[in-house]
């Protein structure tokens, strides 16, 4: 009888191979996002203590790609004064990953 493993996601995330694959994908997204962001003149409001414009770090449940620019939300989403440039969303699509926001 098939018994579904409800902890499969968590167990997979503990596998070194899975984590390194995710990290590789995160770095690809970051590289593409940085290219798009720089083309739009980022950083608009540079964060002094940041290690870079687009950074990748590991979390308990995956990998996070972050735009450290203080104006990153304006660049990503746009505002009254500027159109959206969406470096993070476009980067996910550009490297061939399915985009689903949580």
């Amino acid at each position, binding site marked *: 009888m098939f018994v579904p493993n409800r902890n499969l996601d968590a167990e997979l995330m503990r596998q070194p191979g899975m984590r390194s694959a995710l990290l590789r994908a995160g770095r690809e997204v970051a590289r593409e996002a940085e290219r798009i962001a720089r083309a739009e003149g980022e950083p608009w409001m540079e964060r002094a203590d940041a290690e870079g414009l687009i950074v990748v770090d590991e979390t308990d449940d995956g990998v996070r790609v972050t735009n450290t620019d203080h104006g990153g939300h304006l660049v990503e*989403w*746009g*505002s*009254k004064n500027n*159109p959206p440039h*969406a470096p993070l969303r476009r980067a996910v699509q550009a490297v061939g990953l399915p*985009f*689903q926001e949580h």
Partner: protein
Amino acid sequence: MIPDAEAIVGRYLRTHPLIVAVGASVGPGIPDRTAAPWVKLVQLNGPSDRDVDVDHIVRFMLQLDCYCGRAAQAAARDQATASLLARSVREALTSMAGVHDGAAVGNAQIVSDPRVPDTRFEPAMERRIITAIVVMHPA
């Protein structure tokens, strides 16, 4: 030639009964008059389907900013109006499949819908931001 996604989706939403009922306009930017709700529609990306080597089936990534408008702000209905508009847009997009203006259009996939007020307005304007993937090809 591949379809003009912004024009097709814009025209479709402008005449959709749910959007008309909210009284919202649909366009590429901020309207001159901001009393009524509006949808700002921007194409973020439009890559070809990766499984074919011709530029025919396109996965358009669209951003639809659903703003509440000044009248809703004045009536303290800003969050509710932005929410109603966003839900109306989602409903319209996910029932869009068919032929529109010479393009075969699939139902939209809604990939995100966060609440991100636009702080560049004073006071900040309630806004829901829908990111949608709409697949189209010439009919």
